[in-house]
């Protein structure tokens, strides 16, 4: 049933040594990650003055997305909660600085030093309560407020997210708006269930406030045109069937049997429920013609 990694286990446990290696050695995931981070960097719309920026990669994992940042000449700090993923990142000798941290606890970064932040397929993890002390609302709040603090004025943050449903998307958006961010959702390939990618583009600070809102729409159009162009080229970027519910496996045809029914009825009786008495009809097979 569980096709989303988020529902299987908390991130620091799900991405163990095996999973971390698998994640990085799969050329398909590497390619998708590179494309997503390219797109995120594009949406980040950093000024093109050739000055390297200090970026934050939230949920950097093994540094796949950071590689794109390095290629563009930026310095980056990556943080992730999974030590195994960071170990893989160390082995791959990524250029950014790595940090073992939980984004739900807030980012311990000095105010105003970060020029921009990206996050690829990570923020939706915050919506899960994996420990008794976790409260998704509070964790999202802690994350967004601390992010708002550490971004320099006019800085942007782009998150590529896989929200599980509309409620989750609302939850994330609301938390971001409450922290003071302006911005919105940019959806690539809105009509394809597989290729659909959602980017949360947030800006902070006064300078960008005025310009950001129309721009967000602009990019939305642009992404739509991207859509048609890429469709023509038949470039498929498929992520695993995260969004597709698995087909239910049909149970055994012969049913559960009389013995099982009796046991269950006994169980229910012991719990004090009202259960019909056992008769010769209990658990009897139906006739074939039925």
């Amino acid at each position, binding site marked *: 049933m569980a096709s989303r990694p988020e529902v299987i286990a908390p991130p620091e446990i799900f991405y163990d040594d095996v999973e971390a290696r698998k994640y990085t050695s799969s050329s398909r995931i590497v390619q998708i990650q590179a494309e997503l981070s390219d797109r995120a960097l594009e949406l980040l719309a950093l000024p093109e003055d050739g*000055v390297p920026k200090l970026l934050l990669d939230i949920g950097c994992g093994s540094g796949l997305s950071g590689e794109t940042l390095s290629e563009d000449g930026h310095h980056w700090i990556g943080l992730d909660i999974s030590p195994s993923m960071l170990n893989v990142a160390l082995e791959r000798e990524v250029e950014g600085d790595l*940090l073992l941290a939980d984004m739900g606890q807030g980012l311990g970064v000095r105010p105003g030093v970060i*020029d921009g932040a990206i996050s690829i397929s990570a923020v939706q993890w915050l919506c899960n309560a994996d420990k008794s002390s976790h409260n998704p609302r509070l964790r999202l709040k802690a994350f967004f407020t601390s992010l708002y603090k550490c971004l320099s004025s006019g800085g942007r943050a782009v998150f590529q997210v896989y929200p599980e449903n509309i409620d989750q998307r609302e939850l994330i958006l609301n938390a971001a708006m409450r922290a003071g961010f302006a911005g919105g959702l940019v959806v690539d390939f809105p009509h394809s269930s597989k290729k659909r990618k959602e980017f949360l583009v947030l800006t902070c600070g006064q300078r960008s406030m005025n310009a950001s809102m129309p721009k967000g729409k602009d990019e939305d159009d642009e992404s739509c045109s991207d859509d048609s162009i890429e469709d023509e080229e038949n470039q498929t970027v498929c992520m695993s069937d995260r969004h597709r519910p698995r087909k239910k496996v049909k149970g055994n045809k012969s049913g559960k049997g009389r013995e099982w029914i009796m046991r269950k009825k006994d169980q229910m009786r012991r719990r004090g429920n009202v259960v019909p008495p056992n008769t010769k009809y209990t658990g009897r097979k139906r006739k074939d013609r039925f």
Partner: protein
Amino acid sequence: MLSSNIKGVTNGFPLRIEVVKVEEKTVEINADFLKNMFQKIDWKALTEASRSMGYTELPEESEFSLLESDEFLSRFHHALLELHLEEGALVCPESGRRFPVSKGIPNMLLHEDEV
């Protein structure tokens, strides 16, 4: 190490550095980036941090005009980007909480009661 210089826990900055092992990596120098970073950095914290990692070439005081001199730039660059704390710990000046650093990765995870 870059992050140790500019990172602070929200309630306490700067983090004191406990050094076990320091590594030096060469990184290409980029004056524009340094100028950009200069405005954001707490100079006192940087000098203290680099001093605790055994690099004492940074001047006590600094101002923007110093950025024109190549010598200053290269020292600043070295302290900021080329010094890496490999093993050790970052210590919060307020609460005394230690964040261990291993293989160059600081562990900033908090316990549940500290959130």
